[in-house]
């Protein structure tokens, strides 16, 4: 999404000294016309919390207290049509809802406002400057949920969070509205980079080739694809050979493709390449369209097994970038050109789509993904806390691209396919509202869903739509 940065800044006009004295221009609103300041390093390292209003539709009884309190906030009479929050009651379906401004990160109303009266302040609150507003109503037309509304005298009403202490939250008798000060779990990325670095050092430098196979006492532990290829090429099902691949399979059954996001040395290399490579290479460096299919990796895995059965040795391991990288350390294995050539090519792809290899091609990831499908853990984006189109940070940060921007734009909180999720927790890390959470696969993802699972008898449908049915 573009933002108010797209509005060109006012050209600096030469002002004659006679008119530039202090106090000459009384238009304080000129300050709000300037483009917002770019965040400094401190804000990037420790992003400020973003306060938000959260509605739990399962608790809302549609009583309208929030409307009454909101309309009388400034000492006026109680007139629900003057409220900045709107309660919508659906008696047929038995559900209630309150519509209020989500305080978008890139407000669409601000992009549409011809008077540039709408700005997002440093405190994260989107406000309409009444001195500039012409009441044209374009903000109402531009908002996907029509949160700003027109009052009876044509004035535009929009929530300003009461400057940080919303009256509606204090008044709500059911605590359906709550004020969340925002969340900052921005330490996960430091933990992940540390674990990735240590895993890289351990698997590549200390235990060279440990991903492919490592001997622990009498057992030789191997990567699951290698073990399967072994079975196919030797055409004998040996319990020891199958058991060798079990370590990563058990990990995947417990926690999904955690290996891919946290441990895989090649994944670490790809993440590093993505940090280093310039973004502008991105459009040119992409996989051909027929390979950009998430099912391709299952094809690669099948082909690897078939070819190993035909030639009688582990065919894929010769070109496996993970294995090649693991075995590349040290003098004795200065790598043969053909093997190593895959790695820079795949790392270059990182300039375009993140983790292209892991998304579309990696057969090891395909096997782990099959296990993760029935895994214990899932990452879910809770419907009531998620701010949908107004935020979309998770979608932009997900290296596997499994968070659907389309869903978010349509106001649905997306479901994640755990077979594709590498468990890097970037979404959990980034979500400023605490909507992305780790849950057990059988859990309803948010408290709202759990509460409403049973008592929502009126509509008969699952409480959180698509997610309720699946989880």
């Amino acid at each position, binding site marked *: 999404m*573009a933002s108010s940065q*797209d509005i060109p800044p006012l050209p600096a006009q030469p002002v004659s000294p006679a008119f530039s004295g202090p106090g000459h221009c009384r238009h304080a609103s000129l300050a709000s016309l300037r483009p917002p300041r770019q965040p400094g390093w401190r804000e990037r390292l420790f992003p400020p919390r973003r306060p938000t209003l959260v509605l739990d539709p399962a608790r809302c009884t549609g009583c309208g207290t929030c409307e009454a309190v909101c309309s009388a906030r400034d000492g006026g009479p109680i007139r629900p049509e003057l409220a900045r929050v709107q309660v*919508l009651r659906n008696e047929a379906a038995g559900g209630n809802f309150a519509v209020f401004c989500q305080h978008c990160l890139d407000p669409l109303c601000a992009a549409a406002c011809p008077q540039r009266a709408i700005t997002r302040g440093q405190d994260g609150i989107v406000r309409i400057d009444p001195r500039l507003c012409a009441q044209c109503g374009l903000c109402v*037309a531009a908002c*996907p949920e*029509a949160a700003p509304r027109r009052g009876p005298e044509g004035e535009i009403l929009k929530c300003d969070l009461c400057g940080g202490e919303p009256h509606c939250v204090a008044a709500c008798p059911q605590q359906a509205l709550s004020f969340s000060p925002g969340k900052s779990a921005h330490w996960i990325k430091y933990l992940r980079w540390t674990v990735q670095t240590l895993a890289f050092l351990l698997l590549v430098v200390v235990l060279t080739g440990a991903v492919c196979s490592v001997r622990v006492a009498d057992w030789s532990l191997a990567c699951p694809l290698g073990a399967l290829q072994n079975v196919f090429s030797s055409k004998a099902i040996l319990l020891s050979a199958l058991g060798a691949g079990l370590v990563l399979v058990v990990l995947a059954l417990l926690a999904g493709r955690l290996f891919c996001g946290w441990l895989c040395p090649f994944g670490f290399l790809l993440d590093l390449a993505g940090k280093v490579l310039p973004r502008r290479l991105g459009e040119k460096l992409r996989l051909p369209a027929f390979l950009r299919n998430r099912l391709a990796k299952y094809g690669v895995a099948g082909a690897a097994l078939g070819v190993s059965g035909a030639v009688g040795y582990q065919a894929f391991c010769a070109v496996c970038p993970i294995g090649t990288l693991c075995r590349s350390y040290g003098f004795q294995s200065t790598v043969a050109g053909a093997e190593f050539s895959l790695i820079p090519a795949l790392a270059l792809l990182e300039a375009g789509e993140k983790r292209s290899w892991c998304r579309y091609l990696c057969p090891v990831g395909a096997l782990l993904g099959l296990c993760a499908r029935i895994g214990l853990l899932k990452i879910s984006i809770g419907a*009531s806390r998620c701010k949908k189109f107004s935020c979309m940070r998770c979608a932009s940060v997900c290296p596997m691209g499994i968070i659907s*921007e*389309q869903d978010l734009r349509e106001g649905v909180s997306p479901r994640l396919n755990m077979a594709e999720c590498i468990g890097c927790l970037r979404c959990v890390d980034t979500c400023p509202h605490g909507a992305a959470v780790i849950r057990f696969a059988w859990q309803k993802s948010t408290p709202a869903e759990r509460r409403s699972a049973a008592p929502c008898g009126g509509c008969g449908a699952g409480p959180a739509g698509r997610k309720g049915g699946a989880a």
Partner: protein
Amino acid sequence: MDAEFSRIVTARAASLCVECGKCVTVCPMAEMYPDFGWETSPRGMVQLALAGRGLLSGQGLWRCTQCEACTRTCPAGVDCCGLVADLRPLAREAWGATYLAGGACASCGAPLPPAPVLAYLRQVLPQDPLDYLDLCPACRRERYIRNNS
């Protein structure tokens, strides 16, 4: 038709206009349309209405957002916004300009903003699927609630 036209022009006090241009300074159309000019500005439209020609066929009537900023600011008391609102049905009759008038809500049939206003929104809004612009505010809220509860 002409009688109706002059009745509206009289009722909205267009003849009081002193061409001071205060309505032009507050009009949001100046920011919305790059080719904002005299004949599409509030002052120009009042003058065209007084002259009695060229207004019904122009785009100006349909570019207006009906914000009433001009009416509120006019020192002479011309109801410019009301003039535009009243002349729109005449323009639709005379010119069949339904393509400018804008459609109706895809779900409930309520009138939407006129086509030039929606075109402006489609141009400035960065989001990709803008299909919600075909819905009236009430239907949009309905859809949002359906998706989230």
